[in-house]
Structure formats: structure tokens, C-alpha cells
């Protein structure tokens, strides 16, 4: 557990710059799939999925994709921002942004950093403040969880809405297809004296 040397840390920082954080991935996305998807933008060196330890279960998968160089990483982020990219399923697009140091699970410690902790005495003036802080922190965590739950509800709503829409549209197309296929359309056209063939 010796603190890492400066060079190691510098190398890690450099890696961070080259990495893209991708989220909104479907659970069916596996490493090879993601690799193929992003290979078109450059050389994918490494893919690491971010394990979801504690967040609510509906959170989609996230991954850190390490590219060959920073330019490629930037290009991916830019493209995904402008044009929706969908991986293994439509229509929910993936999202990407530049990776940050704290996103890496197994990151090395910053060299030269001193960690100090101490217990506060009960009559320390900051004791009460600290107690307060703890309560606030717990509340914040609850708030965040609540919000995420709400967001999930929203997502479900949108998904359902789109599904309904899609079904309706699909039914329409099917119907049109059907009447074209079995000749109803042709007969009707004759009856009304319309020309069925497209004259666009």
C-alpha cells in the first residue's frame, strides 16, 4: 500500500484523458459489442464496465472506454453529442462524456497526499456541527435516491409512450401493407377511378 510514484500517477492521469465515459448502455451490451461499436471511431484499447454497487437497479450500465489517444476520445464524445448512437437496441441512445479521475474504481492514490483523521471530543465546538453535518449528509443521500427513483418513473413513462406510439404506427403500416397485398387497394382504386401507381 505504498503511495504510488509520481510517474505512475501521471500515467494514470494521461489515461483518464484518453478515456470516454459511456452510459445508458443496455444490459445486453457486452465488451465485444461495445468495442465493435466504438471501433469505428478509433482504436479501442480497453473497456471497463463500472460496477453498480449501490445505485438503484434500473440504472443502465456504464463503461469506461479507453481509446488510443485523446483526440479519438474527444471525437467520440462530440459525435455522440450530435448524433444519437444506439447500441443493441433502439431508440434509447447512449451518452458519452469525458472521463474523470474519480470514475475509475481502481485508481492510484495521489502521491504525496496525507490522510489525517481524528476523533472529535464531545465538547469540541465543532462536535455539534459535525453531528449536524452527518444528518445533512444522510438527508442528501435520501434526496438523491428519491430523485433517481422519480427519474426512473419518467423514463418508464417515456418508454411506454413510445412503445404505444410505435405499436400504433406499426399497426397502421401493417394494415396498409395488408390491403395492398390482398388486392383490396387495387379494387378500391378501380372503383373510385384512381390511379394507384405512384406518379410522384
Amino acid at each position: 500500500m505504498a503511495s504510488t510514484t509520481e510517474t505512475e500517477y501521471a500515467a494514470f492521469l494521461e489515461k483518464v484523458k484518453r478515456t470516454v465515459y459511456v452510459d445508458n448502455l443496455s444490459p445486453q451490451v457486452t465488451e465485444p459489442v461495445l468495442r465493435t461499436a466504438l471501433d469505428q471511431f478509433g482504436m479501442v484499447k480497453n473497456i471497463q464496465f463500472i460496477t453498480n454497487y449501490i445505485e438503484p437497479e434500473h440504472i443502465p450500465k456504464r463503461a469506461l472506454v479507453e481509446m488510443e489517444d485523446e483526440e479519438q476520445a474527444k471525437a467520440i464524445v462530440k459525435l455522440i453529442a450530435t448524433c444519437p448512437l444506439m447500441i443493441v437496441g433502439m431508440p434509447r441512445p447512449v451518452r458519452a462524456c469525458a472521463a474523470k479521475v474519480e470514475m475509475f474504481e481502481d485508481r492510484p492514490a495521489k502521491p504525496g497526499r496525507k490522510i489525517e483523521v481524528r476523533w472529535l471530543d464531545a465538547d469540541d465546538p465543532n462536535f455539534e456541527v459535525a453531528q449536524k453535518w452527518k444528518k445533512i449528509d444522510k438527508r442528501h443521500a435520501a434526496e438523491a435516491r428519491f430523485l433517481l427513483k422519480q427519474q426512473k418513473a419518467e423514463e418508464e413513462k417515456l418508454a411506454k409512450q413510445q412503445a404505444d406510439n410505435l405499436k400504433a404506427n406499426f399497426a397502421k403500416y401493417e394494415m396498409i401493407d395488408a390491403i395492398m397485398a390482398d388486392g383490396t387497394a387495387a379494387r378500391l382504386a378501380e372503383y373510385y377511378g384512381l390511379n394507384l401507381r405512384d406518379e410522384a
Partner: protein
Amino acid sequence: MVDTSDMGFKWGKKRGVGVKNREIKYYESFHFDGVEYNLYDDVYLYKEGEPEPYIGKLVRIWETPNKTRRVKVLWFFRPCEIVKYLGTEQPLENELFLASGEGVGLANDNPLEAIAGKCHIICTSKDARNPQPSPEELQKADFVFSRTFDVVEYKIMDKIDEKIAGTEVKNIFNRSPNRNGVEKVICPDKEDEDPHNNALLSEAIVKPSDDHNRPLKKRKLDASEIFLGNELKNDEGKSTDAVGHQTPLQSGSASENKFRNKNLNESPRGKRGPFLKPEEKLMELSRGKLDEVSYHQSPQKDDKNNYEALQAPLPIDVDKNTWFKEPPFEERMQTACEQGTLVLLQNLDPTYVSTEVEFVTTIVYNLQDIIQQGLKEKCSAKMLPQTTTSSPHSGQAFVIFKTKEAAKTAIKKLETGCLVLPDGRPLVGCVETPCSPGKQSTFIGHLVISNPKQPQTRGTKEAVSTSHCSQPNTIVYDMAMEWCLLQQKSDFVLDKLYKLQGVELKKVRALLKSK
């Protein structure tokens, strides 16, 4: 449309008459809705049906022969309007882009009554012709801009030309103070006493009147849009944005005006009343909460700094199990959870790393154990990675203790006592079940068209669509856009929550007496 003759509309300084049509009168300033506007001021304009106001600069003000009043507005773009051309660049939160170039979208003529309020925009361009703003001005500004967006080339330009929309560049840059005797001072609520009484201190009124419209309206919207509901009673009534401009609002300039009328006619108050900026509301609330804390603070006494410090290299405890290759943390986590040895540590510094957390936990364990002759048991910890949905203010880590009792005592110790990190933040420990690592089968948002008619050939069954960038002319694209919108909205709301939390934490930190 509101009848502005009641609202005290008055023309100000005349500038001249039209060249071709001498009945058109140009003006340099006017008084509208209790606010004084000058040429080249920046304003908000509301459009019916649009949730967000447009922001523009008044570059021409005139009255037509039929007595209608019009203004020509040079537009500012918000980053969200030109996100496509920004690429990966992240503009500042309150950054705008001035329109430039000769084409559609540069400027428009509008009725004067569409103006909804004044806006304070500072130009931060480092151009030599631009008077540089002071830090105080930057702080008080609603928005900043330093670049333009060319409406013909669809590009962001750094350089500002000599003239934009027929306006000389000196009117676009920051103006030197004391222009026309109207001081360009925005009075934040703290400094101004009675904004009501001074109708002519137009700028002072503008900001509060902008703000109080929004918090009051937003209260309703907050409750529905952000679903904070009963659980978060504290947060209701706070606007979700420090400056009160970015959240979606119902539009309709008529109702806005009525609202403003109503409040302006109320009796003046000595205190700041409803004009509290949302931040101050938050401060008041938390001040109320934290007041009780200050009573407990006893007089300062000498704090011996008994920090235990981690210095490189960390003394490695020889644990007889260390030569075992331990199974990955995830696996051990599940078993630990069942055995009751898993603890979730919260309120860590987000930049901490797993090894540092492990050190911290040894301290926890140690001090409980002075009786037991300082058993130094190593525990393993895993710092949870920060993601786009996690709070930027605190980090969390899972720690596996050696025994259930150890875990229990650690939590109890953290509850009753306060183990603080150097910046004063106390650790919080609790028992929390981690997520089961099983795969979820459905993914919200991916739709499948089930087509029982088409025979499932072997080919179609095995074909797996991989990735796909959709074209703008498909239904898929529209749906994808809806998702993007939802994602952005969620991000935004989460961001706001964390910002609010950040403010709360700042308050707490401020309370800490210096070590």
C-alpha cells in the same frame, strides 16, 4: 396584451426621425413597466408558448406613424440553442453567444411590449476595445459573453467585428460607467434598502422583480416538475437555480405583467420581503436550522491536533491472511453483507481512493480497541466510483470488517462520536445492502416490434444489431431525440439538487470554527 398606458409607459430621450418617413420617431430610452430601458440595454423577451425567455440587445427603438412601438433586438444565443456547434466544449453556465453575421436569426423587430425585463450581461472578451469587468461585476452579472455565433456560417467566432447588426462594436462591449447618468449598477438585494420606493432606480427593481416572479411561479412548477413532494418540504419554494433564469416557466407576457403590477403596488417593506434571491431564502432556512447548533458551541479551547497522519509508505500490518490471494471485492461483498460485516461509509472526500479508505477504517477500529491492546486488524475497502449520477460533494466506500461485532461497533462509534477528516467532514457509517450483480433483463427504452407473422428464420434470430446512428428522417431519430431530452432534463434536475446540497454544505462548513 397589457395596456401599457396604465403601466406608465413613457418615451424617454428622442434620438431622431426616420430619413425616408419622417413620421417614424427613434428614441434612446423609454420607461416601461416601472423600468427604464436605454438603447443597447440587454433585455428578456417572452414569447407565448415558449418556456424560456429570449435574450437580446436593444439596437433600435422607434414608434411608427400609427403609434405602435417597436424595438429591434440583436439576439444572444444560449448554449442549449447551439449545442450542436459547440462540440465537446462546455460553455460556462451563464455564458451566452452574441449573434453575428448577416442572415436570418441575427436580429428581429418586435413589439416593445414583448420586453419582459432587463438583463445584465457582461462582456468578458479580452479584446482591447472592451473595458474589462471587475470581479464584483462578474459576480453580479446575469450572464457573460465573449464570443459570437455566426448565423450564416453556424460557427462560433472569437473575434468581434467592427459592426454587428449595424451597431458599432463599442455598444456591444462593456460600457464605461456613467453613461447618460444612469449608473450601470445592479443592486443585489443585500445592498438595496427599498427597491419599491425608487421607481427610477430602475436597475434595482429589475433584478428583484425578475426574481420574485420566478420563485413565486416556480413554486408551483417545482412541486410538479421536480417531484420533490412531501419528503423534501424544505426545498419547496426554493428556486432550483441560483439566478432564477434557467428553469422552465409558463409564458405569457400578459400574465407576467399583471404579476409584476401587483407586487409593485404593494406597500413597501423595510425588509427584503419577497425579493429574497433564492439563495438567500435557502440561507435563511438553513440559518434557522443551524441556529440551534450555535448555542451549543462552547468557548474555544485549545485543540490539540491529534490527527493521525498517513505518510508514505504506510506501515503494512502483517496479517496472516495477506498471502492469500483474495477473491474480488464484489464476491466478498455479498458474503460480507450476509455475515453482517459490510459497512457503507459515507461523506468521504470524493477524491479518496480505496487504500486511503482502508487506512481510515483502521483508525476507526483501533480506537475502539485500545482496551484490546491495539489489535490492528486490516479491513478491506472499496471506494465507489463517481458517476454522472453520484453526488460531487461526498464519496462513499464499502468496507468489509473482519467480524460482525467490529462492523457494529464501528458504526456505533461513528454515530455517537465524530470522526472527522481534515476539512471537518464527519464520516457516516451504516449498513447497506449492495446491489445484486445479476443482470436485469429489460432495459427501459429499448423497444421491440414483435412480429409474429414473419417467420423467425435462423438468420433473423441470430442477427444481433450492434450499433446504429440514426438519420434525422426516421421515427427512430425522433424517439431518440425524446430520450435525449429526457436525459438532459434529468441531468439538469440532478445537477440542481447537488448544487443546492452544495450550498447547504457550504453553510455547515462556514460554521466550523477554525482549527
